[in-house]
């Protein structure tokens, strides 16, 4: 990991192409009455979600609760069945995925989805696709604008690789990189387009405690240094409790509750959602993992 940079003081000013947003409590992402049905199976319904600009917001809940489906609807990866989604007051549901991305919604996937046969640097360059304006002929003829844009894009890509802590991987093929580095690369690719909101789907999955702490630190810097609002789905309670200001709990396709980490930890219903009713000792014994995680988070 590189040293933590002091907020707002970035090398050469390359990282940021706009002023840091003034943190406000107005919702940046506003989801109203979201519903998604796959045939007769209702994956989520009545989902209202309000993400404050400049915050880190976690979404937790048991497997199959509809967390990733909500992400998929927001990023237009699947069309929602009903509901409205606003980004900064502008309605974004119904737009095609690449347009939603251009509005400033970036995401990563539960199972990393990089371009496996491209190098790390190329992956991040593709992430800047919408920033490049040189035409075909300028590219072929190697015009000044094309070369300048290419050079800028490369410098920017390197900055972001350094920001997530993998500058030494620039020339490696994505599919040859260790899993943890692939996750960092995916975050770099998402960030390089200059999004307003970054949605991380289980970024700590498969990470050991040290990597989890590094991830927490990275998310802090994404919010503080880049001014990007972060929403994350996460099962590692230690990471969630360390990084999130607010937590929304999903259960069975709907929102169970929302609150600060303290409130969520004190909420009986949350523990019940994860483990079943207190009398249901069998359920707890059958899945000790969530309990350990919850306890770890609460401790």
């Amino acid at each position: 990991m590189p040293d933590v940079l002091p907020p707002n003081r970035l090398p050469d000013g390359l990282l940021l192409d706009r002023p840091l947003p003034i943190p406000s409590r107005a919702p940046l992402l506003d989801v109203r009455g979201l519903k998604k049905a796959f045939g007769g199976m209702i994956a989520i319904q009545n989902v209202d979600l309000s993400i404050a600009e400049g915050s880190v917001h976690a979404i937790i809940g048991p497997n199959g609760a509809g967390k990733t489906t909500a992400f998929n609807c927001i990023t237009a990866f699947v069309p929602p069945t009903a509901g409205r989604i606003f980004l900064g007051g502008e309605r974004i549901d119904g737009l095609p995925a690449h347009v939603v991305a251009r509005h400033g919604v970036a995401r990563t996937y539960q199972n990393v989805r990089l371009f496996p046969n491209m190098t790390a640097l190329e992956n991040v360059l593709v992430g800047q696709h919408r920033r490049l304006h040189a035409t075909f002929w300028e590219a072929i003829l190697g015009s000044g604008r094309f070369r300048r844009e290419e050079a800028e894009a490369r410098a920017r890509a390197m900055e972001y690789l350094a920001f997530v802590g993998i500058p030494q991987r620039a020339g490696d093929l994505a599919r040859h990189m260790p899993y943890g580095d692939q996750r960092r690369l995916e975050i770099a690719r998402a960030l390089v387009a200059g999004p307003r909101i970054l949605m991380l789907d289980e970024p700590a999955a498969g990470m050991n405690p040290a990597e989890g702490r590094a991830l927490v630190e990275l998310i802090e810097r994404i919010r503080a240094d880049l001014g990007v609002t972060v929403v994350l789905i996460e099962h590692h309670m230690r990471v969630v409790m360390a990084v999130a200001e607010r937590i929304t709990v999903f259960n069975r396709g709907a929102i169970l509750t929302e609150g600060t980490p303290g409130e969520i930890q004190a909420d009986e219903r949350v523990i019940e959602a994860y483990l079943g009713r207190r009398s249901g000792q069998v359920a707890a014994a059958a899945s000790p993992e969530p309990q350990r995680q919850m306890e770890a988070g609460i401790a």
Partner: protein
Amino acid sequence: MSEVPRSATEPGAFSEWLRRSTWVDHVLLAIRISVAALVLVGLAGGLTAGTYSAADFVSFTMFGLTIGSIYALIALGYTMVYGILRMINFAHGDVMMIGSFAGLFAAGALNDAGLVNALPLLALPLVLAAGMAGGAAMSLIIERIAYRPFLHVRSLAPLICAIGMSFVLQYAARGLFGTRNRAYPGFGWMEGTVSLFGLIVPIPQIVAFIAALIVLAGLLALVKLSPLGKAMRAVAEDRDAAALVGINVGAVIVATFAIGGAMAGVAGVLYALVFKQITVFMGFALGVKGFAAAILGGIGNLGGALLGGLVLGLAEALGPALVLEGFGLPAPYQLKDVIGYGMLVMILIFRPQGLLGERLASKRA
């Protein structure tokens, strides 16, 4: 299963192979050996027969490169569409036919206007441009009708639709243009031959070869350098991830079809220049050849399409004289398609990933 300890009497690689192999392996090996034997016997016979002089072989080679570069142009369309959609565009050969006819009509119009004779060097690029436009337009129509509706559906419907489009195009063209062979008006300067390093080579072959190389170079530069090329690679690798970094996947697919169609249009015009005549049914046979070239080189791989086209062209041009002649066949050149299609079958059996392999599919599986 417990590991068998290695002993001093370790079985040789051959007996190990015998133990593991099945009768399918034996049949395949027998086919390999017999094909190799046939080729060797034919080669020996062909080289000793002395029917052809060295100059003949050089001119066969030149012809092979020319037709090979045309195959390569067609193969690029197959390979680009496959790379992005994992689908074969079976109507691609007919896109080439339409491009060829677009070139024919442009050449006719230019001839009527007297431009072919007045500005012969300008007329050829114009005819090529018309072929490209015709091919690209046809390709876009096919994308719209046969592929776009199925973009988010996992089905074989696009393949069936494309085969249907192929017949629609052939018979529509038959109705509109007739079944007789058509010829481009003569470009004065392209008649005749030139002497190149002491060899007599028809000018159209040289023109076609050079034009194909220029177009291929342009395409490779586009894909390697431009933002569009980068977006195409990204869509080929992961369509959803590409959309989520802001790439307009639909637009990239459209661009891919348009470029592939334009390449086929160029191929159609160059074919007409070399062979002097075109028909509405030319698309099928040439389409299969282009497809064979794409498979030969490794489908999904641009460099492979180029290599596969040239190898197929050379094999067809040299094979009859080198190999078939050796068996004393009466008219070996009538059988050049046996070589082309035979290579397609052999490649599919023995090296389905093609000469340059198929990077994309191997990591996807």
